[in-house]
């Protein structure tokens, strides 16, 4: 097996600034995303994901310029998510230098958008982001449902069935976030990660809940994920990317040096 499992740091960006604190950038400043991305690139991150958490039109312009700047300086794959609703949104981000776009809510409300996007731009650049929450009772068989609006609104869609449908519609990759685990530092929801990874043939990125390096290993070995995404353990300097890779390699996971 030659393909390395990927480590992807994720930045939440608001009006062109990283909004979650990032330790290695001047603390008085929330962080220049380009600066942060460069640091992760130097550390050996395999990709970088940006989530644009703003909604306003002006901020969107800022985001496009930021992606342009980043793509001129950081030569690893960049994924941009958040607020991608139209073919035009995708085109602008790709033209600015993004390699992939993350589609989340727009896919739930209009699955055909994913098909259209994949046909237009190729599956390789379409990442469907899934926010899943466990809805089964403890004595029932495990079941997870898709939620929107930061985990507040249920959709009635079964997460595993939804992932299968998105793969059929042309998604190139699934970014799976457990809303139960996001921000908890208790580790990925391995059950839903495994269920989705086994159900589809496209790669799965596990997200939500990483608090220690063992969680990254578990996401891959037990969850069956192809890549692991994390924010705070890297942002706050608890661990560096080389430490994470060494830890994974020590447990027999193939990573890029």
């Amino acid at each position, binding site marked *: *097996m*030659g393909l*390395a499992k990927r480590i992807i740091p994720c930045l939440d960006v608001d009006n062109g600034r990283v909004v979650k604190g990032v330790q290695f950038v001047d603390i008085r400043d929330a962080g220049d995303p380009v600066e942060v991305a460069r640091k992760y690139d130097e550390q050996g991150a395999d990709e970088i994901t940006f989530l644009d958490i703003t909604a306003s039109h002006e901020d969107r312009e800022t985001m496009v310029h930021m992606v342009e700047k980043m793509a*001129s*300086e950081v030569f*690893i*794959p960049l994924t941009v998510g958040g607020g991608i609703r139209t073919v035009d949104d995708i085109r602008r981000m790709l033209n600015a230098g993004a*390699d992939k776009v993350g589609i989340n809510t727009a896919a739930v409300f209009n699955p055909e958008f994913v098909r259209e996007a994949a046909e237009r731009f190729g599956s390789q650049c379409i990442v469907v982001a899934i926010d899943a929450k466990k809805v089964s009772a403890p004595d029932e068989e495990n079941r997870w449902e898709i939620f929107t609006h930061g985990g507040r609104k249920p959709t009635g869609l079964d997460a595993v069935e939804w992932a299968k449908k998105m793969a059929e519609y042309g998604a190139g990759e699934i970014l799976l976030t457990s809303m139960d685990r996001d921000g908890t530092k208790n580790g990925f929801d391995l059950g839903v990660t495994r269920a989705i990874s086994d159900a589809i043939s496209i790669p799965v990125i596990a997200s939500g809940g990483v608090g220690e390096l063992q969680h990254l290993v578990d996401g891959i070995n037990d969850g069956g994920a*192809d890549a692991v995404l994390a924010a705070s353990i890297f942002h706050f300097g608890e661990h560096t990317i080389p430490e994470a890779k060494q830890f994974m390699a020590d447990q027999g996971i193939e990573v890029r040096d």
Partner: protein
Amino acid sequence: MNTVAVIDYGMGNLHSVSKAIEHVAPDARVLVTSDPALIREAERVVLPGVGAIRDCMAEIKRLGVDALVREVSQDRPFLGICVGMQALMQHSEENGGIDCINLLPGKVKFFGDPLMEGDTRLKVPHMGWNRVNQVKAHPLWQGIDNNERFYFVHSYYVKMESGDDVLGRTEYGLPIDAVVGRNNIFAVQFHPEKSQHSGLDLLKNFTQWNGKL
């Protein structure tokens, strides 16, 4: 002056390719263009490409890029990237079967579903950092370790008619002809512009290559 033309046929993101070349060759003039006159004048030519082969080939033919590629690939360093590599082959299985530019004798095939490696099912697309075994010496490998990793993302792979045209191989369930070429033509399945140091080194070598072996 060292001019590199990146052929723009309306498919996907050319920003990354041109920025990466500018980064490694600050003195070079990098043009993203579909203008045949400018492409003919350039010392080096890059054919990039992302997306589905049907759409790429349709635009390539509509703009006359196929004839232009055949012409300029005769006499100067020429680099094909990803779908820009696949487009150089005879034929692709993608989209129900598409005839390509037919510059090099090879076919583009689907990985298969399921793609197995022993008992393990491999994900398709082949996405991420994989090793490239340099099966043949080449000026563009200069300074790059054998079995170095590059960033791949593709569901179809190239199989050359003759091993003579294969310069680098990657294993993903089956052997992929990841780097192919002949004389002044060099083509890669991975994305050098997204492959950090190893990719930038390769692009730098390309900007300094005289097209000779």
